[in-house]
């Protein structure tokens, strides 16, 4: 059974166990307040009339619940239509990021060309440049390629994520090389090794990159706002702020709550995938 700092013997002694339990209890309480609290507040505000939210934000339903908010939010904001756009946008970004990161990580960590260090360095260097100033040049690139109002304008730039490349590269570098050698001896070319040997072993890191990619895509609003001016293809993260001026605050909060439920629910379902099972271990090892 895996153990951490505390040995089984220490767990047994109350002198260690009690303070530790207290600390953990405090931590759990703090996490509930800090992590869950804001979400619960949003859920409450979603069904509270505007004036109540504005005048007494902490009060719990001083004038009753306004469940109609949810229905109004759903119809007025057409959440289902924009939700579909959000899903498509997230799916495409996820796929592009995965393809770029795994192929590049494989090439740089396993195939190791002579110019590998140069490529790694240039990729890392992109972390230094503030992305806000790239808004106009990137937009010009997208316009010239006639990608405006298509999802490609969001999918492709999402792939230029240096962080993904770095963690996948490290993970691959920590895989046992003997497996690759064995496959190569058996006559497998680099494509075969990638597809049949490396990828199956990388499920944990793929899970990690996937979660990061989907979460980032869900939250992204400035860039999609810019390149998806046609409301028919806009995701929720763009549509909701655009509507903020035209809908009442309580309906707006209800729409926000509904649109947040989905990524949070998805996250809670899939968190097993990467929060346990040593997914990131390979990426962070030595």
């Amino acid at each position: 059974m895996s153990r951490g700092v505390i040995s089984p013997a220490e767990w047994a002694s109350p002198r260690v166990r009690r303070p530790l339990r207290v600390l953990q209890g405090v931590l759990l309480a703090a996490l509930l307040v800090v992590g869950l609290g804001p979400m619960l507040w949003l859920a409450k505000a979603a069904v509270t009339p505007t004036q109540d939210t504005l005048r007494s934000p902490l009060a719990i339903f001083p004038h009753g619940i306004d469940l109609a908010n949810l229905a109004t939010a759903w119809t007025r904001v057409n959440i289902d239509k924009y939700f579909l756009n959000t899903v498509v946008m997230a799916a495409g970004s996820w796929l592009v990021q995965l393809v770029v990161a795994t192929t590049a990580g494989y090439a740089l960590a396993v195939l190791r060309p002579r110019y590998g260090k140069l490529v790694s360095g240039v990729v890392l260097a992109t972390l230094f440049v503030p992305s806000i100033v790239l808004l106009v040049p990137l937009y010009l690139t997208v316009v010239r390629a006639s990608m405006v109002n298509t999802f490609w304008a969001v999918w492709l730039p999402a792939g230029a994520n240096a962080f993904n490349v770095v963690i996948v590269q490290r993970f691959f570098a920590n895989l046992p090389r003997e497996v690759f050698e064995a496959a190569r001896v058996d006559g497998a070319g680099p494509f075969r090794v990638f597809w049949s040997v490396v990828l199956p072993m990388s499920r944990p890191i793929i899970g990690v990159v996937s979660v990061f990619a989907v979460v980032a895509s869900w939250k992204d609003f400035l860039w999609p706002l810019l390149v998806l001016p046609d409301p028919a293809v806009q995701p929720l993260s763009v549509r909701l702020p655009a509507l903020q001026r035209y809908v009442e605050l309580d309906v707006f909060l209800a729409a926000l709550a509904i649109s947040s439920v989905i990524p949070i629910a998805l996250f809670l379902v899939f968190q097993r995938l990467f929060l346990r099972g040593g997914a990131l271990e390979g990426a962070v090892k030595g």
Partner: protein
Amino acid sequence: MAVKILPRPVRTTAVRARAPRRRRGPRTWLRGGGLSTLVFLSPLLVVFGFFSWGPIIQSVVMSVQETNLVTAATFVGLDNFAAVFADPLLWTAVRNTLWFALLALLLGYPVPLVAAVLISEVRGRRGLFAALAYLPVVVPPVVAVLLWKFFFDAGPHGVFNTILGAVGLGPAQWLQDADSAMPSLVLEATWAAAGGTMIIYLAALAAVPPELYEAAEIDGASVWRKVWHVTLPNLRNVLLVTFILQIIGTAQVFLEPFLFTGGGPAHATTTVLLLIYDYAFADSLGGDYGRATALSLLLAAVLAVFSAVYFRVTRSWSTS
């Protein structure tokens, strides 16, 4: 019986003899799998080339131009850089950015680590802890800003002030006072980002071999000594990497000051990125884009130099 191997006499000649080197021509490259490597790298090269390096180079070009984004740009040499240095707000922004980075380091660096150590000792419900900690990261910025604006209300009935009032502390100014504005932003920024770092630490902690702890226990080490002498050294690489990533990230802080205070009160939370945004978009509507790119390049250069120095200095500390 050992065979004695006599050293071969080295023949020195007047002319330096060069052994014929095998040329690495295209055929060797092809045979060595060079083409397939390039194929594997092509998604990265295409995507980064068009959507990252290309725009970066374009912004370098724009930093020596003056443009109104409609008609053709004119070349102005280093005027934009001079204008940036002549701006009195620049030094305020640099000071504020350093202050934010320092506060974020003091608060946001140890907190995920401590939490991760505590969580890694949890038996059973570890997933719940981790999920709760990561939840703020999943929340979209639109929602987060809305919530925290209510929390930071400086009146006696603001959410935080009500809680403070319940324990007998007076209402705090939060964002309304030049001294407390930046710490308030750091609080929100830590809330929004600590979960991600914590997950990474959790994974690294799980990778520490238990045998090391057992060996320390045989030597009679207490819990605290085990953490200090086994856990932390094994986390060294991760800690070094997250440190520099945090510095790079906080040096580019933009969303928090932009959405919460607009750089106020009285420029107390104006950061370098906010200055860049103002140059590029806010007031001149693109007229000062050259200045924005000039300042971005300066920032990128500073970060690059800092990272290079950092890696050199920490090379002796890291184990890889």
